[in-house]
């Protein structure tokens, strides 16, 4: 595939991520903070988000497996996940977190377990998509091209 085609593919892919609600304008904000002196800023922030999310998802799993669930603790983790997903523009993850917090407030264990499944799912989707996007970007850069923004 030639450079122009790759660049077009990237633009189309990004557009679909926004259209499908995976990403919102906060992601665009992050991209605007990247420049020649900080060319890896977005990848770095997103990598931190991945690490942080995986930690939180593990904590959530453990917390919901307890005999007596500590909903305040669960809510605290979801609050963090909601915050970081919002900060990078991972809209679908953020939305599940909002529903998740409501179940925490109601102390609804089933609702929480369902939301955990959903948030894991949304997280893994957005992770895959962002990784694909970064790969495309890398291909373009390796081919000597620049990333269309």
């Amino acid at each position, binding site marked *: 595939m030639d450079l122009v085609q790759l660049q077009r593919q990237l633009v189309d892919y990004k557009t679909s991520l926004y259209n499908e609600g995976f990403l919102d304008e906060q992601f665009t*904000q992050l991209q605007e*903070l990247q420049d020649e002196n900080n060319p890896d800023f977005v990848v770095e*922030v997103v990598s931190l988000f991945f690490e942080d999310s995986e930690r939180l998802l593990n904590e959530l799993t453990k917390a919901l497996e307890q005999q007596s669930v500590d909903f305040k*603790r669960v*809510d*605290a983790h979801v609050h*963090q996940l909601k*915050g970081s997903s919002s900060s990078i523009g991972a809209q679908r993850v953020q939305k599940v977190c909002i529903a998740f917090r409501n179940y925490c407030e109601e102390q609804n264990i089933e609702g929480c377990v369902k939301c955990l499944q959903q948030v894991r799912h949304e997280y893994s989707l957005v992770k895959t998509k962002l990784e694909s996007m970064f790969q495309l970007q890398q291909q373009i850069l390796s081919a000597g091209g620049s990333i269309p923004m």
Partner: protein
Amino acid sequence: MAVNGAVTWLRRAEEIDGYDLSASDSEEVHVLAVDDSLVDRKVIERLLKITSCRVTAVDSGRRALQFLGLDEEKEANGFDGLKVDLIITDYCMPGMTGYELLKKVKESSAFREIPVVIMSSENVVARIDRCLEEGAEDFIVKPVKLSDVKRIIDYMTTDFREGEERRGGINKRKIRDDGDDRSSSSPPSTSPSSSSSPSTPCSPSALDSPTRRLKMTSFEEHIFTNKN
């Protein structure tokens, strides 16, 4: 222009507090950013650097106080590091909330002149109100954007030249109304967020009651109308 403003402000603070600021030659605005989220720290750091600020990012209110030299209620007589020109802190943090940090800074004779900006993902009007009354300069609803940071840095550096009376007015208002506020709400000494881990999330509490009267100056109105 912004640079001159920052320097003017530093000199002004020197007159007020009589502190020796000669160690701080830097014309850059030095911001202390406080946030327990690694992702958010990375973002705020970048936002501030783009706005030509020097940034120190810490992960807790406790560390912020340590950096300032205010840990364990001991007040510093001198500065080991660079003077801090602005504190920008998350509201919801385990241990010490941003609100508690704000109070500690404003209660300190050494640091009360440092403007404090609060960030929060929760757009709770009563919370915003409470922070402003406690002396916060501004309140940013997360996720933080470049325009939010630019606005803060801009008015921080021009505000002191043009609006010192107004700023004094905000502080005066706080002192005058302090007695009224304390008597009309439950004691704020028991923070709505628990200080033990695991952290209690910052859900709206009785203190965030919508019946608390909003006191808005045109400055504060500007914050609310810009939020959406």
